[in-house]
């Protein structure tokens, strides 16, 4: 049943009730997230040549060193959280990883001193905060209805989880900012410093795919 979605399961790493599993699907996601984290760590931020208001010459916008440090750190946290979210086979743990990614995403842009970027990230922060309610609410309701949170056990329990799945998807939509809630996030991407911004995009896209997998499994 489960192998018809994720491919072959190669092995697991148990941390108590929380089990990290290595399947074809999760290995690819994990490796991609890690490789991107390394590349983001190595890459220097790009410089933008911006036209000036009321002047002829252009200005080279450079990301300052201390801003770079905090943003790089947040990008790495985001990458590690994404890699973890790919592996975990526990619903509540996955929701926590999702929230960690959301917080780190705000962190990546919060150091940019441009007011429209900060405004957009504030709006995104509001959405992320609202989204934790359906996310954890869904995990809690699934626990109450089935008595377990493990993604290996949930498919074996014959219970209709339609409403829980819908609110889990809604929580994920808010946390990762897919359409039609993309507007605030897209505005964040205008900030300079490409490698870190890339991490926001990567994490949310990988998490969407992973959520689809989870919702199909349980």
């Amino acid at each position, binding site marked *: 049943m489960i192998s018809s979605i994720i491919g072959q399961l190669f092995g697991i790493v148990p941390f*108590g009730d929380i089990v990290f599993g290595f399947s074809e699907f999760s290995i690819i996601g994990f490796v991609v997230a890690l490789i991107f984290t390394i590349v983001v760590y190595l890459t220097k931020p790009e410089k933008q040549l911006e036209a000036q208001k009321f002047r002829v010459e252009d200005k080279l916008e450079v990301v300052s060193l201390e801003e770079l440090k905090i943003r790089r750190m947040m990008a790495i946290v985001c990458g590690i959280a994404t890699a973890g979210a790919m592996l975990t086979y526990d619903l509540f743990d996955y929701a926590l990883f999702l929230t960690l990614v959301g917080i*780190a995403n705000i962190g990546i842009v919060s150091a940019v001193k441009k007011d429209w970027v900060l405004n957009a990230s504030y*709006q995104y922060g509001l959405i992320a905060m609202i989204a934790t309610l359906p996310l954890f609410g869904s995990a809690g309701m699934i626990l109450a209805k089935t008595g377990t949170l493990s993604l290996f056990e949930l498919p074996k329990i014959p219970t209709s989880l339609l409403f829980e799945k819908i609110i889990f998807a809604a929580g994920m939509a808010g946390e990762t900012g897919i359409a039609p809630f993309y507007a605030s996030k897209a505005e964040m991407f205008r900030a300079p410093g490409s490698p870190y911004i890339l991490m926001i995009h990567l994490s949310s896209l990988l998490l969407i795919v992973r959520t689809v997998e989870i919702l199909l499994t349980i």
Partner: protein
Amino acid sequence: MKKLGKIWNYLSKPEVVPRIFSIFIALIFVFGLLMPHYLNPDQLYPKPVPHSQTLKTPLAPYDRGGVPLKVPAKLKSQYPQYEPDLGMITAYLTPVANWIKDKTYYFGTTIVSTPGGILDEILYYTRGMDTVLESSILLISFIIFSWMFFNKD
């Protein structure tokens, strides 16, 4: 078609998005009120009856019994085969926490209990990863706030 274009343009403003999202969530929850909900009696993480431990044990409502490293506490685990030492360390308290425990009946619900390792998940022992993640979420948000505070000019 023109009206549709206007609606689409309205949706693309950042400050509108939280409003729409919360309306969307509210609609879903209203839909949820119509669905049947019930509790599965066979729970993986059973809770004691409310107030059954209050004023009887200082660790209320999180007392699971057991003596550290000697008698295992009463716990259920999803995968018992991975945890031979299940429940052995759940009753562990630091010396400071022990001292406070002797003074009050409300220790289990105080913030002081956190360093002693009496958070629900640690009591359960089986969900250690969650505790790490929860505290790292707090830590990250604190880092962001403090960076913005020190570089606010």
